[in-house]
C-alpha cells in the first residue's frame, strides 16, 4: 500500500519534496553515462540497424538461371528474369552447375527453362518452368517463388500485349495501401521506437531503482518524511520525460534521415507514447521493487520486457500465425498495442477508434503494474 500521509502536512511541503526528488533524478540521469547509453546511444544503434541493416525486402536475391535450350523465345523469357529488380541472375547451361552453389548458399534458388520449353509452347503443350528454391530459409524461399512467378507473369503480359499470347483470364490487380513500395524500413522503424521506449521505461527504470536499494540511498529516503507515493512519482516523472525525449529523437531521425512518412498527428504520437510508458514504467518499478538488485532486475527486464516487445508484439512476427497459447501471452505485452498504432500514425494517419482501444488497454495494464509496484514499495525494509 502507498502509505497515506496524515493530512496535517502542508501541501507546499509535498510539492516541494516532489520537486526535489525530480531534480535529484535529473542530475543523476545527466551525470550517469549508463542512462545516456540506454536512453540515447542504444536507440540510435537499434534505429540504425533497422533503418539500414535489417531489411525484409529481398532486393537482388542471387539465383541461378538454367536455359537448357537457347532459342529466341527462351532468351526472351530469360531476359525478363534478368530485368527483374528482385534478382541477381547467374546463368548456366546445366542445373548441376548450380547444385553445389545451392548447398553452399551461394544462390537462393534455381530457375530452369527446360529444353522442351519452346516446343511445348509452340505445340500448346503447357510449357513448364521449374523453380527450385533453397527451403532452409522458408521466408526467402517464398519470396523467390513469388518473384519468379512475377517475372513470368510480366513476360506473358508482354507477349499478350504484343498479341503473341492470350491475356490471362483473370488479372489480380494489387495495391498496397500506406506503403506502396513495400519498404520494410517504413514499418520496422516505427516498431523499433516501441522497443526503445521499452528499454528506457523498463530496463533503465528497473536498474536505477534497484541501484538505490543496493547503495542504501532508498533506506535514507524512507527515513525522511517523504511518502512512498512521492518516492515512486519522483522516479516516474523524470523517466517518463526521458522516454518521450528518446522517442522524439527517434522520430526525428526516422522522418528526416530515413524518410519514413509521417501521416498522422504529433498529438496522436505523444498520446500513444505516453500511454505506453505507463505499463513500461510500471513494469520497471515492479521489477526493481521485487528484486532490489541490479543484476536480477536487468535479467528480468530483458526476459519480461525487451524480448517480448521484440518477439511477441507483432513487430517482426505475425501474432495471428502463432499458436493459440502464445497468442494469449501476447495480450499482456504492452508493445503489442503500441506497435500497430505507431505504424498507423506514421504510415496511415490518425485512426482514433483504433488508438482509443490501444490506449485503454495499455493504461489498464499500466495501472495493474502500478498497483503491484505500490504494494511492493511500502515504506518498509524486509
Amino acid at each position, binding site marked *: 500500500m502507498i502509505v497515506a500521509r496524515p493530512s496535517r502536512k502542508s501541501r507546499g511541503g509535498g510539492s516541494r519534496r516532489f520537486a526535489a526528488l525530480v531534480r535529484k533524478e535529473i542530475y543523476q540521469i545527466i551525470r550517469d553515462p*549508463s542512462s545516456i547509453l540506454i536512453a540515447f546511444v542504444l536507440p540510435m544503434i*537499434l534505429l540504425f*540497424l533497422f533503418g539500414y541493416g*535489417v*531489411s*525484409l525486402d*529481398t*532486393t*537482388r*536475391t*542471387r539465383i541461378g538461371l538454367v536455359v537448357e535450350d537457347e532459342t529466341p523465345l527462351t532468351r526472351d523469357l530469360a531476359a525478363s528474369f534478368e530485368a527483374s529488380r528482385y534478382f541477381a541472375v547467374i546463368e548456366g547451361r546445366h542445373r548441376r552447375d548450380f547444385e553445389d552453389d545451392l*548447398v*553452399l548458399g551461394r544462390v537462393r534458388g534455381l530457375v530452369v527453362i527446360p529444353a522442351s520449353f519452346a516446343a511445348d*509452347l509452340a505445340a500448346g*503443350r*503447357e*510449357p*513448364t*518452368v521449374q*523453380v*527450385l528454391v*533453397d*527451403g*532452409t530459409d*522458408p521466408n526467402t524461399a*517464398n*519470396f523467390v*517463388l513469388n518473384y*519468379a512467378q512475377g517475372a*513470368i507473369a510480366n513476360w*506473358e503480359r508482354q507477349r499478350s500485349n504484343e498479341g503473341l499470347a*492470350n491475356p*490471362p*483470364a*483473370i488479372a*489480380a*490487380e*494489387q495495391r*498496397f*495501401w500506406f506503403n*506502396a513500395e*513495400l*519498404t*520494410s524500413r517504413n*514499418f520496422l522503424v516505427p516498431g523499433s521506437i516501441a522497443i526503445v521506449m521499452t528499454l528506457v521505461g523498463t530496463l533503465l527504470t528497473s*536498474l536505477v531503482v534497484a541501484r538505490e536499494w543496493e547503495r542504501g540511498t532508498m533506506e535514507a529516503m524512507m527515513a525522511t518524511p517523504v511518502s512512498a507515493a512521492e518516492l515512486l512519482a519522483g522516479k516516474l516523472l523524470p523517466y517518463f520525460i526521458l522516454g518521450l525525449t528518446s522517442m522524439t529523437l527517434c522520430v526525428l531521425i526516422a522522418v528526416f534521415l530515413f524518410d519514413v512518412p509521417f501521416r498522422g498527428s504529433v498529438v496522436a504520437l505523444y498520446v500513444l507514447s505516453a500511454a505506453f510508458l505507463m505499463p513500461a514504467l510500471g513494469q520497471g518499478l515492479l521489477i526493481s521493487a521485487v528484486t532490489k538488485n541490479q*543484476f536480477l532486475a*536487468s*535479467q528480468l527486464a*530483458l526476459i519480461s520486457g525487451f524480448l517480448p516487445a521484440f*518477439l511477441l508484439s507483432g513487430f517482426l*512476427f*505475425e501474432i*495471428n500465425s*502463432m499458436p493459440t497459447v*502464445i497468442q494469449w501471452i501476447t495480450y499482456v505485452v504492452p508493445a503489442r498495442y503500441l506497435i*500497430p498504432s505507431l*505504424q*498507423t500514425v506514421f504510415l496511415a494517419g490518425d485512426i482514433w477508434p*483504433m488508438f482509443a482501444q490501444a490506449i485503454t488497454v495499455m493504461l489498464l495494464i499500466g495501472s495493474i503494474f502500478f498497483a503491484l509496484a505500490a504494494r511492493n514499495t511500502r515504506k518498509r525494509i524486509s
Partner: protein
Amino acid sequence: MWWARLKALIVKELLAVLRDPKGRTILIGPPIIQLLVFSYAATLEVKNVDLIVLNRDAGHWSQELVQEIGGSPTFRRIGFAMSPGEVRQAIDAQRVLAALEIGPGFSRDIEAGRPAKVQVILDGRRSNASQIVSGYLGRIVATLAARTPAGERAVSDAVRVEARNWFNPNLTYQWFMVPNLVASIALLIGLIVTALSVARERELGTFDQLIVSPLRTHEILLGKLIPPMMIGLFHITIYILAAVFVFGVPLRGSLFLLYGSAVFYLAAVVGIGLFISALSMTQQQAILGAFLFMVPAMLLSGFATPIENMPGWLQPVTFINPLRYFLVIVKGVFLKDLPLAEVARQTAPLLLIALVTLSAAAWLFRRRLE
C-alpha cells in the same frame, strides 16, 4: 601440477554456476522456454489471415473465387463489405489484412471470355505479411482462371510454374527456426555467463585471490574459457536432441562436424564474453556490454534477414560476428549435409575470432595490474 591447478579452476567455475539451485534454474529453464516459445512464436509464416470482400458481381464466378479463398488454410475469416468505405475502415483499423474488390462485370467478363479483373488491397503497414498474402491470392486467382472457359482454352500457352523446395519440401518453418535458435541461444547464454564471470569475481574481490595465487594469466583464462564452453556444449546437445526428437528436423549431415565446429564457435563466443568482461569494472557494465554486442549480432547474422540484403557497406561488419558463420554451419549440417570443406571454410573465421578476442582479453587482464 598445472593440470591440478586448472582442474581446480574448472571445477570451481562449474560449481559456482551449478551449485546454487537458482543458478541451475537460470541455466536450464529460460533456454528451454525460449526454445519452445520462440520456435513456435517467431514465425514469418502467415496464417489465420482475415480478409474482407466487396463483391459487386452477382454471377457465380465471384462466389467461386470467394469459396476458393475460404478453402485455403491461410485465411481464417472472410467478411463482406457493402461499400468501399467499409473496406477502408476495416483495413484502417487493421481488422483485416487484405481486401478483395470484385467489380460488377466480373462473371460477365469471364463468361464472355474477356479478361476479368479483381482488385486486391493490402495493408502496407504490415508489408511482409501483405506480400506473402498477395502471393497466395495471386495463386488462387490463377487456379480459378485456369478453370474459366478462356483459361481452359488458353491453358496451352500459359506457362506453368513447377515449384520445388529443396532441403525443406514443405517449407516447414521450424526446420528453419530451430537450427537458428541452437546457434543464437548458445550465443545469448554463453555471452552473459562469461561476461559476468570475471566482472562478478572482480566485484566480490575473489579475482584478487586468483591473481595472488600461482595461477598464470593463461591458466586463469583457460579456466574461464573451458567451463562456459562445457555449458554451451550441454545446451547445444539439448537443442539438437529437441530439434530431432521434438521438432522432427532432419539431421542430414555429420554430427561430428557439427560438434567439431561448435567447439570453435563457443570458443569465439566465450572469447568475446571474456573480452567484454575484461573491459568492464562492474557487473552492470558487463551486462550492458554483452547486451550492446548481442542485439546487433542477432540482427546482423543472417538469422532474420539474409546478409546479402544488407547494404554493401554494412556487410563487412558481419565478418566479425561469430553467429554469422555458425548459422550457416548449423543450418547446413542439419538440412543440406554441408560438406567438410565448407564447414572448415566457415570454421576458420571462428578460430580467428577466438584467438583475437582471447589474446585481447589476456592483454587486458595483464594491463589491469599496471
